[in-house]
């Protein structure tokens, strides 16, 4: 309590709980600063480099902004699908009735991760039509495993006595799930969410092969035509997007972390 009061000064931008979080976890402030510095370095590098005809095709603001936009769409959409499927699935798999399906489902999720990404992507494109939808769907299939596994593990790790006490106190199994189990599993689940977000940002670079757009539109031509600036720009921007999403996820993790359990 004392720390909160100490921190509460007049005219402060952040709420007391926000300031508490940032004080407790310095790196949450450092990360955005680093992101901005790297972005600044990249912009300086581009500014100082005279572009030849090939580089000018991709290194221009309209092209890059479209690539970033598409990349964010691909990453967020696949991440959203993954989270919407994997977390409920993970919760269901730890219920007593579904326990016998757990190994099979985890096996399927494992297999999804092991598939050769570009091959599946292109075959799906040929069968179902190239473009963002098939890209998003395929990326989602690749990313299901980390969150599914983390959700299952997060829930399985909860001391069964805690749940027993909850039931003993008069909670129904459903109340115990929502009030005790899920809040306790949140840190592990959110760690899985962060992993998946980074994964989808990386995988979204494959969008270039199936008319999905994304930062791969810089990386692949840069690679094939041996133009460092194009390759570097695409790569660095992908890293920046990944770190930004990671930072946002960490903020969410801090704010969603239950207190006092």
């Amino acid at each position, binding site marked *: 309590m004392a720390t909160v009061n100490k921190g509460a000064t007049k005219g402060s931008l952040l709420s007391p709980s926000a300031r508490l979080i940032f004080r407790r976890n310095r790196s949450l402030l450092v990360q955005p600063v680093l992101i901005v510095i790297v972005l600044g370095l990249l912009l300086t590098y581009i500014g100082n480099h005279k572009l030849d*005809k*090939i580089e000018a*095709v*991709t290194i221009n603001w309209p092209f890059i902004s479209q690539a970033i936009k598409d990349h964010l769409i691909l990453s967020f959409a696949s991440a959203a699908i993954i989270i919407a499927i994997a977390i409920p699935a993970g919760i269901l798999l730890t219920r007593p009735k579904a326990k016998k399906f757990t190994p099979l489902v985890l096996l399927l999720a494992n297999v999804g991760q092991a598939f050769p990404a*570009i091959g599946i992507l*292109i075959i799906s*494109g*040929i069968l179902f*039509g*190239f*473009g963002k939808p098939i890209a998003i769907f395929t990326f989602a299939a690749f990313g299901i495993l980390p969150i599914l596994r983390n959700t299952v593990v997060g829930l399985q790790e909860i001391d069964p006595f805690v749940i027993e006490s909850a039931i003993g106190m008069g909670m129904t199994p459903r109340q115990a799930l929502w009030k005790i189990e899920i809040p306790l599993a949140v840190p592990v689940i959110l760690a899985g969410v962060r992993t998946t977000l980074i994964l989808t940002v990386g995988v979204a670079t494959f969008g*270039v*092969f*199936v*008319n999905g*757009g994304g930062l*791969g*539109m810089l990386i*692949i*031509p840069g*690679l*094939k*035509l*041996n*133009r460092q600036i*194009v390759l570097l720009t695409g790569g660095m921007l992908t890293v920046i997007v990944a770190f930004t999403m990671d930072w946002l996820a960490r903020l969410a993790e801090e704010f969603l972390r239950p207190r006092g359990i």
Partner: protein
Amino acid sequence: MQAKRIKVAAVAAALGLALVTTGAMAPVANAASKTSLKGVSVIVGSKDFTESIVLSKIVKQFILANGGKVTDKTNIKGSATTREAMVKGSINLYWEYTGTAWLVYQKQTDVSLAPTALYTKVVAGDKAAKVTWLPMTSFNDTYAFAITKANAAKYGIKTYSDLVTKMPADARTWCVESEFASRPDGFVGFKAKYNVPASDVIKTLDTGAIYAATQNGQCGIGEVFATDGRIGALGLTVPAEDISYFPAYNAAITTTDAIAKKYPQLIKALSPLSSKISNAVMQNLNARVDVLGEDADSVAKSWLAGAGLI
């Protein structure tokens, strides 16, 4: 127990020996017939599409059959990357195209030169880069645009200009791959030359996916390679290039001056190869890999054997 262990060891040794001899048999058998390239040890590279890989496998199998040693580093992503690898010494030779060298490495702009004249200029231009060119093929694997035979008949398309004037806008989706979209001899210039409307839909796909996507209707017009086996196999056709835009792209083995100096016998042995590879031959070899799914090394080897070259 002792007897069983000896038995197991004996079986393992026999298996091991069998594996080693089977692996060693091929070059040994050929070395008996030809050893003109013994002592030659080179790293063979190639770009990342079937034709480039098959051409390099032909060189590889030829050298192996003649007693030489080859390290296979084919399937490198991107033209410029492969060229850079050779200049820097990570690979020793690969097949390059005259048009590509002219426009992309030598940064020239004149696309009106006939194949032989272009070849002469390219060879001269690469002296500064210390790159040696062996004789070129007669086939011209130029960038091309393909449409289905059905569409060609339906809209009466005979030339590239017809694509813009006779195909309705909603059928005119262009599918290109990302390298072509960025190259100076690529889509940007083509669009300008042929007045392709800015409103036309352009999709970026993987090189290989374009063929299937054009055939099943997802692309109205697909960017392809002229000697690809899939054009014929998938019922596609290439209209005529009525306004000259693409330069000639004849293929030739390129290597560094250093390697040419080190292995003059290799240069002499490889030089006659390109004249044996016609348009029809190249398309056929490409089709065997892309359509029939054969392995590039075995296609190369069987072709060389059939042509009496090994």
